[in-house]
């Protein structure tokens, strides 16, 4: 088991208003699994992803990743956890605008102990010929490919994808999902995708549905489809 979350609770307080983002959430995921967290806006899926990724903390409960309860880690150790174990992919790619595609991947490779060869990783995401272009000179799909290369160059145990196709057109979105599944298979990386697009859940082994900060369904998908075959 790579991820085990027990009774995770998170409340956001703004002045006198408090919002329960997660209420006693518990789940597990195995190494190499591909999981999709589904839910409408405000269901808590981003909060859950942030907590697993070590960029937010829960109020109570445990988040055990690869045998370590990250809830107890101090800021420095949490930084090392993100550095060594987690790769992130965002809806809007979040590339550094004044760095080329190659240099954007280097941002992650630079702090990795044993990164994958830069040219190899860019080749694998189909971006070799665009490596000297700046993000502005790339399409959304291409930028997301660079973001994927940046996330996996350090060979993370965990790849967290926050609406990775949310800003892309249909064809680009399918290509990106295809790439993510390839990464999952090739590097045996545990992948968690959060989305509000039901169709995407078909590519996952595990489908977790969230509603109002609670898990409404946790399904093991026996009929995994390839990204090419899904439609929406």
């Amino acid at each position, binding site marked *: 088991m790579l991820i085990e979350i027990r009774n995770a609770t998170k409340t956001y307080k703004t002045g006198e208003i408090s919002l329960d983002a997660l209420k006693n959430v518990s789940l597990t995921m195995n190494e190499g699994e591909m999981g999709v967290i589904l839910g409408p806006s405000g269901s808590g899926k981003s909060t859950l992803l942030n907590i697993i990724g070590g960029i937010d903390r829960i109020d109570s409960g445990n988040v055990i990743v690869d045998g370590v309860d990250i809830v107890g880690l101090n800021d420095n150790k949490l930084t090392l956890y993100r550095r060594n174990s*987690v790769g992130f992919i965002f809806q809007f790619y979040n590339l550094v*605008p004044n760095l080329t595609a190659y*240099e954007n991947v280097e941002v992650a490779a630079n702090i990795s102990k044993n990164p994958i060869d830069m040219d190899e990783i860019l080749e694998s995401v189909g971006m070799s010929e665009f490596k000297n272009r700046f*993000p502005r000179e790339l399409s959304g799909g291409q*930028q997301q490919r660079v973001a994927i290369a940046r996330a996996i160059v350090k060979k993370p145990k965990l790849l967290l994808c926050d609406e990775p196709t949310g800003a892309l057109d249909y064809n680009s979105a399918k290509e990106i999902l295809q790439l993510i599944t390839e990464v999952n298979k090739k590097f045996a990386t545990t992948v968690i995708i959060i989305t509000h697009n039901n169709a995407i859940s078909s590519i996952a082994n595990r489908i977790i549905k969230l509603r109002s900060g609670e898990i409404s369904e946790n399904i093991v998908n026996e009929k995994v489809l390839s990204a090419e075959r899904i439609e929406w």
Partner: protein
Amino acid sequence: MVINKMIKRTIFEYKAQYIGSIILIIISCMLYSSFNIAMTDALDNLNIFRINNNLEDASFIVQNPITNINDLEKKYDMTLEERKSVDYINDDQSVLRILSSTDNIDKYAVISGQPLTGENEILIDKAYASAHSLAINNELKINNTAFKIVGYMSTPDYVYPLKSENDILKNPRSFGVAVVSKKDINAIGNGITFYSVKFNTNNSSEFISDLSLDNILIQWINKKDNNRISFIDSDLNGGVVVGKVLPIAILILTCVLIAIVLSRLLKRESLVIGTLYAMGHTKKELVRHYLKYPIIISMIGSIVGTVIGSLLVKPLLSVVTEYYNLPLLSVDFDIKYIILSLILPFLFLIPVTYLVINRSLELSPLQLMRGGKNKTKVNFIERKLNLNRFNFKTKFKIRELIRSLPRAALMVFGVALASMLLLIGFATKDSMDYMVTNSYSDIYKYNYEYTFNSLQFGEVATGEKRSLSSFASKINNKDEDFIIYGVQKDSKLINLVDKNNNVIGFDKVIITKSISDRYNISAGQSIKVKNKLNLKEFNVIVDEIATAYTGNIIYMPLGEFNLSNGYPENSYLQIDSVDQLNIPADQLISEVTKQDMIDGYNTLLMPMRVMIGGIAVMAFIIGLIVIYVVTSLVIEENKANISMLKILGYKKKEIYSLVLSSNIILVIIGYIISVPLIIVSVASLFNLMTEAMNITIPAKLNISSILISFVIIIITYEISESLNKRKVMKISMADSLKEKRE
């Protein structure tokens, strides 16, 4: 408009940037109003004083007394007055020059106390009085006669009380002036009789010729060659230049700063602007709204700066009038400078910010709502740079540097300005140091210089003979003044070297570097000179140029000097000596001690250090504001990147290093640029100040000063960086997650 409520909130949210801009405007207006009003007032005071008290055109000494003053006055339409001075040597070896009171020329003005009304009353210069603990109503014993100090005074010919008219630094501890009645001065003792003259028509040459017919003119000093009279003009004019140039430079810096801050604000608010457009707000309304930012900043800065500047006028004027022995006749707050000080920031800021705002608002509502045009445009340098050979950190830093060229330019310009301001004090001190060392230690090896009041003949037992006279020459169609020294060929007490540091012998005609630089005269050239005392003309061919900044001085062999000027063979007018000589005072025009000059300079060092310190504080504030604001702009622009780097697992130190440390390169570039700029600027300022004077001050900047200033700038940078580090830490990682870029 309800959107105007945003202004206060935005200013408070980004207070460092706006407060920084306001402080820069305050400094600028403060300098502009205080310097211009005070220096103009000082110049006005000086002019009024000179007119009311009838400043001389020249003073002179003749071998035999003039007996037909009234006839000469009528003949040449001038005012001529006989005067007397006695140098009284105090127990502490300081010299108090007692002048006879005058009726027509160089009349004294009482600064405080009472004018002379009776016998045994004396008026004294305030600086000498302070240095010797003398006060009004005290008794001062001179040659066994007790004088009552009835007041402090100033005379127009001793506004800068120097012992010799060729001196450059006053020292109230060793020299001062006093005035007694004509009757009392005769009782004090035998002194020097000299004459002051003021011409109503331009006929001084005819008068000199007439005088030389049946008398020998020993010395003739025009007011512009008399440092006691002319030094103050140069200093005040220098102050006026500083008061005009520096505030404008700071305002230009503020303009760039505000333009960048505003364009960032407009970029940040592009969604709001687009929405307001879409809702029906007109461009005019929005321009008016955003113009309120520079208007508010200019208004606060100019009002506060002008008020502070106005309050500083009187203290500044007091410093000037006390440093120079000048009566403070009136303090006028020239309304012109007050108004200019109030409107200058608007004149600079409004047009620039209008252009910035107007350009941003040219986009359509849709473009604005999408975040504006070319949000993260790749500039041509970024595109052309091939950084493959560098490691990632270096690449990141270089990219960071060139990402925003206006921002980089602001940093370089701001640091260069702050560094120049810092270096101006050091350069002034180093230049003065060099001049004093060059003149009084390296060149003049004698300790005492005696100038006789009549020609001397024969050999001297101790010391070396020298002669001198003042000359005029037409260079580039302008009358320029020189002093020519006739020096013993085997002189050991004057040491001149060429540019290669080789000693130059006195069997040649040598000119100083000051002359060579100022009039572009090189070795081999001929200069036609006219002796101002006997109007004799002759040519001198320059053999060598000496690395000396002692003034417009030509050195030639004494024999040749006498021959060319028609003076008797073996005659001389001065003796230079290492040891003090016992020459009766009534035979001398002056006795100059080198130590007096060095003491004078040392006295000046303390206020100079205070000045350097004051300027350094201002430079520190400007540097801190610029570096802080630029760094905070860098952080603001990199907010998403910093957030991203945190998510990727970068540690605090690694983020500081990547995002912030590249600024140090801009700081260093700014500093490096400032060094040659300050040398050129100080040289121009000195040239301007000494244009009408008989000296040149070379602009020098020592390595130690460069290093000390560099350390101060780096400390400023470090302080500003550490203030900004907290901002980096406050950026949340979640900021990056939903950030829409590109």
